[in-house]
Every structure is written in structure tokens, then in C-alpha cells.
């Protein structure tokens, strides 16, 4: 066992890495199932609007607030629009907001974390103190505060959720960078005179990548939940849009009469976040086994 560890210590890149990852991941059956479910969502987000059974915007006042049936799988809303079609079309919006905000936060956080971990000293201290200040605000409250300044809207939700993702990514990547920095191959690269930015981005960054992927998956679920909460509170997507959180927010007024309007958007949010969390757990077990119990 010890031999293998020392080998990977100075040979970080190996061709079999992806293959051995796949071989290990395939045994996590629920994680694989979640992965396929998430792929389905991505496909729906890409081609959804062209395969929906009904036009999600066309009102049909003869079939208002109908429960689920074979004609309308998830029923119709207060304007007679097909909820199932609206949910499919909303995938692009809801996933898009989650993915873009987490990616934005991850990119900024990763760069800060790499710089902080690699340079150390006062650079590290300054960045980490700033992160501490951000951590002093409970996450969604930070987003609410930012939206109070910027005004409601999906674009501002992306910015707000991205900002509360930055410090957590910075902290995680910094920790990993500190670990990688001491490895033999980094010292070797340094000794042949590679520039600092080359060492950081070409050599340290790939080593932190698996940690980032695990974290990205886990935070994506949280981000989708946060964005849905903000839209639900009326601070995000416009109430007329087919964003899942906004659909839930609108349908609250019909609680007693048309519960399907509340049930289905929430269910799809729940399933999406659940699949991301299970996938994240599986990825962590495979890629980052140290943090496993």
C-alpha cells in the first residue's frame, strides 16, 4: 500500500486515472442512477422547449386548475397552461441559475484559494480574513442582503449565490493547495525554474481538481435550493416565468383547491437536489476517500 502512495506522490498524472475512477464509481449504484437522472435533466434543459407536449405559455381558459390526468400529466395552472410542459421548460432556467452561480463562485474561489495556499504569509492571511468576514453572514442571508442592494431578478440571484460560494471554495482549495505544495514533483518543477503562475495553474491546480469536482457537485444542490428559495420569496425569477421556485411561489394562492400546482414543482426541485447530493456523496467516496467515514 505504501509503495502506491509514494508513486502517486511524484507521478500525479497517469492515463489510468479516469479509467480507475470509472471502475470505482460504477459500483456506487445509487450514485450512478443519480448521475443518469442529472444527465436527463441536462438534456431536458438543452432540448426541452422543442419536445414539450404543450406550449408552456399558451393559456387555455377551458381547462383551468385541472388535476393531473393522462392529457396533462401534472395538471394545469390558473391560466390553463400545462404544468408538465412548464416544468420541462423551467429546467433550463433553474439548472442554469444553479450551475452558473456555482461555476462563477468556484472559479473565483479556486483562484483565491490557490493564491492563498501557494503564496502563504500575508497574502494568505488577508484572503482568509476576508473569507472570515463573509462567513460571518449566514449563507442565504448574505444572498438576501446582496439582493436587497442589487434589486430582485434572476441575474442578481446568480451574483448573490456566486458570492456566498466564493469563500467556501477558497477555503477548501487553499487547504488542498497547502497539501500539494509540499509534494516532491512541485519542488522538482520549481527547481527547473518554472514560473509561479505556471506551477500554480499547470501543476497545483490539476491536483486540487478532484476536490473541486466533489465540492462543485455538493454545492450545486445547495445553490439550486437557495435560488429556488429566493424565487419563492419573490426576490428571484419573475413570478410569470417557468422557474421552479417561482412556479411554487405563484401556486401558494391555490393551496386548498389545486395542490398539484405546489406539489410538482417542489418534487422536481427535491429530486434534482437529491440526485446531486447522492452523486456528490459517491464522488467523494471515490475521489476524496480521506473525508469518508
Amino acid at each position, binding site marked *: 500500500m505504501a509503495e502506491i502512495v509514494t508513486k502517486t506522490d511524484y507521478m500525479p498524472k497517469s492515463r489510468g486515472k479516469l479509467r480507475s475512477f470509472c471502475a470505482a464509481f460504477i459500483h456506487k449504484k445509487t450514485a450512478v442512477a443519480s448521475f443518469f437522472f442529472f444527465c436527463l435533466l441536462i438534456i431536458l434543459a438543452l432540448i426541452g422547449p422543442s419536445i414539450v407536449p404543450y406550449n408552456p405559455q399558451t393559456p387555455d381558459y377551458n381547462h383551468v386548475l385541472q388535476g393531473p390526468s393522462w392529457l396533462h400529466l401534472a395538471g394545469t395552472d390558473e391560466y390553463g397552461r400545462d404544468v408538465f410542459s412548464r416544468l420541462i421548460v423551467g429546467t433550463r432556467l433553474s439548472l442554469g441559475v444553479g450551475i452558473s452561480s456555482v461555476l462563477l463562485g468556484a472559479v473565483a474561489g479556486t483562484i483565491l484559494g490557490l493564491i492563498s495556499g501557494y503564496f502563504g504569509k500575508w497574502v494568505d492571511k488577508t484572503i482568509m480574513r476576508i473569507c472570515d468576514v463573509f462567513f460571518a453572514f449566514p449563507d442565504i442571508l448574505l444572498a*438576501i442582503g446582496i439582493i436587497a442592494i442589487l434589486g430582485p431578478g434572476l441575474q442578481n440571484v446568480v451574483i448573490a449565490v456566486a458570492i456566498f460560494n466564493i469563500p467556501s471554495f477558497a477555503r477548501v482549495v487553499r487547504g488542498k493547495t497547502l497539501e500539494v505544495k509540499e509534494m516532491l514533483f512541485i519542488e522538482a518543477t520549481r527547481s527547473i525554474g518554472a514560473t509561479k503562475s505556471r506551477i500554480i495553474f499547470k501543476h497545483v491546480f490539476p491536483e486540487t481538481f478532484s476536490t473541486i469536482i466533489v465540492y462543485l457537485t455538493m454545492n450545486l444542490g445547495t445553490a439550486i435550493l437557495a435560488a429556488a428559495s429566493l424565487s419563492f420569496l419573490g426576490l428571484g425569477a419573475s413570478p410569470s416565468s417557468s422557474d421552479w421556485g417561482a412556479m411554487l411561489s405563484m401556486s401558494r394562492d391555490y393551496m386548498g383547491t389545486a395542490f398539484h400546482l405546489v*406539489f410538482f414543482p417542489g418534487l422536481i426541485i427535491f429530486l434534482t437536489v437529491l440526485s446531486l447530493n447522492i452523486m456528490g456523496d459517491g464522488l467523494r467516496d471515490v475521489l476524496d476517500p480521506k473525508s469518508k467515514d
Partner: protein
Amino acid sequence: MGKYVIKRIIGIIPLLVVVSFIVFLFIHLIPGDPARLIAGKEATVKEIQAIRHELHLDEPIFQQYLIYMDGLLHGDFGESIKSHIPVMHLIGERMLPSIELSLLSMGWALVFGILIGVLSAVFKNRWPDYGGMVTAVSGISLPNFWLGLVMIQLFSVQLGWLPTGGADSWKGYIMPSIALGAGIMAMIARFTRSSLVQTLKEDFIRTGRSRGLSSMTIVFGHALKSSLIPVVTVAGLQFGFLLGGSVVVETVFSFPGMGRLLIDSIQLRDYPVVQAELLLFSFEFILVNLVVDLLYGFLNPKISYET
């Protein structure tokens, strides 16, 4: 120990100052002139000037901060733009229901979270474990507002057992606290499980077993005590989640707490109230984290206080 406590308490003062300065800047970061916002659209230039002077907006920004902090330390958070009621008063009457709701949610989340975690760890890789961990991962993934709405449909609309909202009686606390606590319970269950699984591998547990102690004594008398240390930290971190979640859950249940006040104030553009709320929430969070830190040091004798 005493030295350590004092050091930690002094250590958070700079953080409190920086956070208060950021929250103070909040009203200046909003696009537009705050005095004009407060005066309303029909106000004359003279009226705006008067408000600007009254709120010290014509002074240098650092001076303004000192005036603001002076007010804060005297319990003066300014007054609401809309209702002209002192912010302190508005928040004061909402604080108690919110605190009660938070503690109730945290309480049952701890009890059931630890229970599920212990069952899962003891029956590792058997069906109670799978059941517990499915519950836990679902709890983390559930949108709390949706859980709240589903419960309202079931218990209020269909069965008529519980009120749909408000905090008039203890019944009004049941569903909000469940909606708020579910995610935290799930987190605590996961951490208890992994921590207890670790502990059960330790030597002193094997010694206990070889002495013929029953599983119950081993788990509850020996293992659980040392497993709960990381759980304390997690519970503390989850407090932030609780504060954020309360905003959403209080809105779902029309619960008269601080969270709903925040959302109402944002919608009314009542900035002094928003500012005070953000400040209180972040201070509360910082203080809870401090308490958790101290508690952690107190529970875990391995941590040295010298560093």
C-alpha cells in the same frame, strides 16, 4: 482555560467591527440617494436636505459610522421609514417567537438526528442504516418551503389538525419547527453516524466488549460521549442554516418572527429595518459560533489552549 476564553472573546471584536461597518455601508450601497428614498418621490429639495441633515448623511462617512455605532450601543437602531416605529420596537416583539422557533427546531433536530445516527452506526450496512441514511440524504435535499406547504396541505387543509400559520398557540409552532429542523436533523444524523462508526473501531470499545459489557452500555455509556464532540461543531454551523431557513419558513407559515420581518421590509424598501436585521442575524451567528468553539474546547481535552 479562562485565558483561552478571554482570548477568543477579544478575538471576535475586530470581526464584529468589520461586519457592522459592512452592514452600515449597506444603506449607502443601494443605488440612489438614501435621503430621497426616505423622503419619497414628492419631497421637495428642502425636505430632502432636512432629512439628510437629520440622518447625518451630510457628514463624512466615518463620522456617520461612529454616530451609527453610538446609536447601536444605546439600543437605537433608527426608525422604520414606512411606519416610523423605532426599529428596536419592531424587532423586539418579533424576537421571542423567532428564538423559540429556532430552539425548538434545533432541539428536536438534535434528538432525532442523534437517534438516527446512533441506529445507523450500530446497525451499519444493515437495513436500519440504509433507512436512516436515505432519510438523512432526503432531509438535506428537501426544500424547506415545500416541506412546509406539503404539511399545510396534509395537516391543515385535509385533516384540519393544525393551524396553517401564526403563532397564537403552541400548535402554530409544530409544523414550522419541523420544516426548519428537517435539514439540520439530517446533517446531525450523518455526522453522528460517521463519528460513532469511527469511535466503535477504537481500542477502548473492544476492551469494553471483552469485559462483557452489553452493546447498550458500550454505545450509550462509552462511545456516544466521545462521538458527540464533532456533532457539537456541526450543530453550531447548522445554526446559520437555521437563521437563513427561518426567513423562508416564517414566510410560508406567516409566522410573526424576525425572518418574515426581513422579507416584508425588503419588499417595502424599509432599509433601516433591513439593516438592523442583517446586523442582528450576523452578530447572532458570530456569537453562536464563538460559543460552539468554546464548548468544543471544553468538551475535547485534547485541544490545547495555548495556541
